[in-house]
């Protein structure tokens, strides 16, 4: 059950390339158990100019009330959060939404990440490692350049194989990570290997991943981003077009993780 509480910035750790890990400490119990893909709504002391909190996937959460998010300055809110200093107060609502499912026995989970879409997959990997089945995971991680690829050491430490791609070729293969993904699925198909895709990243990347997943007919889970005002299902702002009787579901309560074939995109 989501709660709202105040937290304070413990640490604002820069990863270079504008990426920042914000570590927060809840005044109270904090988030409790979090499923990879779940998110929090964060709002600093922003006065009246920026009314609504911003959504961030949980990077990690400890029982002691500490948790972290990964972010990059994008607009006004993220810019303020990136500039926040230890001790600054942040209002937190969460954990919110429905996350990824755990790997089934005998099935490989191919994690496809882009930019600040890493946290849900990073947490999925952390938890798999903790359970001892990190071997069932692989990471496909793309960005514009090497600076867009962060926290790689963690995946290495967890023994998770990573395939990297950058548009400028400064790390991994040159080009989009989706090309590598396509090949990976072809091999899997040939080998009759059971795989599923878990992806989070820029919407154009998710649209491409969706097509690839559908084409290869493998279960594909997308962690989507939609404009959000509340994060807990009351503003109806975060509609996601879906197939089925009702034209929309809600990113914050039905998602943010949706199955690719469910999503009504061209």
């Amino acid at each position, binding site marked *: 059950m989501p709660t709202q509480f105040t937290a304070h910035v413990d640490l604002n750790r820069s990863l270079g390339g504008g990426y920042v890990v914000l570590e927060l400490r809840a005044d109270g119990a904090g988030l409790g158990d979090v499923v990879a893909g779940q998110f929090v709504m964060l709002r600093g002391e922003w006065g009246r100019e920026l009314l609504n909190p911003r959504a961030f996937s949980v990077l990690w959460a400890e029982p002691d009330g500490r948790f972290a998010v990964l972010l990059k300055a994008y607009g006004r809110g993220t810019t303020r959060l990136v500039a926040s200093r230890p001790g600054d107060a942040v209002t937190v609502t969460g954990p919110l939404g429905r996350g990824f499912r755990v790997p089934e026995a005998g099935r490989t989970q191919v994690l496809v990440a882009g930019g600040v879409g890493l946290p849900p997959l990073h947490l999925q990997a952390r938890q798999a490692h903790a359970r001892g089945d990190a071997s069932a995971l692989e990471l496909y991680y793309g960005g514009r350049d090497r600076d867009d690829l962060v926290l790689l050491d963690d995946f290495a430490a967890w023994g998770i194989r990573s395939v990297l791609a950058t548009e400028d070729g400064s790390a991994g293969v040159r080009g989009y990570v989706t090309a590598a993904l396509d090949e990976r699925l072809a091999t899997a198909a040939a080998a009759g290997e059971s795989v599923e895709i878990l992806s989070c990243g820029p919407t154009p990347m998710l649209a491409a991943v969706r097509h690839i997943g559908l084409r290869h007919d493998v279960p594909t889970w997308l962690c989507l981003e939609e404009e959000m005002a509340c994060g807990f*299902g009351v503003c109806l702002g975060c509609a996601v077009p879906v197939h089925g009787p009702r034209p929309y579901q809600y990113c914050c309560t039905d998602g943010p993780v949706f199955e690719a074939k469910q999503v009504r995109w061209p």
Partner: protein
Amino acid sequence: MTAAPRNVAIDPARVDLRTRMGALHMPHPILAASGCFAYGQQFADFMDLRRLAGLSTKGISPKPRFGNPLPRICETASGMLNSIGLENVGAEVFLAEKLPFLHELGVGVWVNFFGEDFDSYVQCARLLEAGRGRGIDVLEMNISCPNIKKGGIEFGTVPEVAHRLTRACVEVTDLPIVVKLTPNVADVVAMADAVAQAGAAGVSLINTLTGMAIDVRTRRPRIATMYGGLSGPAIKPVALRMVHQVATALPQLPICGMGGILGGEDALEFVMAGASCIQVGTANFARPDAALVVLEELRALMAQLGIESIEQVRGCIRPLPAEAPRDDGTH
């Protein structure tokens, strides 16, 4: 010189927050606003709903409605735009599945409703009449739906049309009908007068101002339907002005004020402008318990200013005597 009110602090326990909207008595003036509180349930995770003077539901239509394409919301300076599309479960489902929860809880319920056309407004009021005695306290008729077709605009902007529509709905229910007016008019007093004459129990002021925002990078509107409704502190000055205009022109007509209320001081401004009760809308998104924050801040502020009751200051704003140096507590 103009002496300010003495403002000698009193014990918060002595502050009498009771108020009434016509015949409807309330323990205090703070409600949650339509479309910003869904049907209440989700907020039970965060707060005790019974502490509210009431909540206004998401707008209900006779049949269920799906919402608009996305994006449906975007943030603006001290405000936000929305074009949700009046998505709702429809009157039957509301009565069968949403109302009982609220009824059992015992929270005051204002059912915000609308129709796609004249007849469906009346039909909706008739359907909701079934909720009388089963939890519904007020029908809040939203005549400001830019989103709906068939002359929807006229309901909210042409006094004669609003009068006929209100009269027709009042005739099919014994529930008090509070008409929610749009600020997108030149003369809000004429609108309020028209619905009052038609038997409205009061008016809710204000709904959202129609606005637009543009993403210069994509060259697209930030709201899929092009225009949306502007809410939040940005519109508070317009809301206060309209509440004051109507309260001054029609002192007998109860007013529920809203528009950009985030704290107790905002609420007190609306009361002083002439509102009998107020609704908290957009603020709920950032803080699910926003209405209770407003309530406690209002109590504390009234105590600090030595205001003993809502009635004591409701509509108390008088013009300034010109040219007197002001003792406005500034240094």
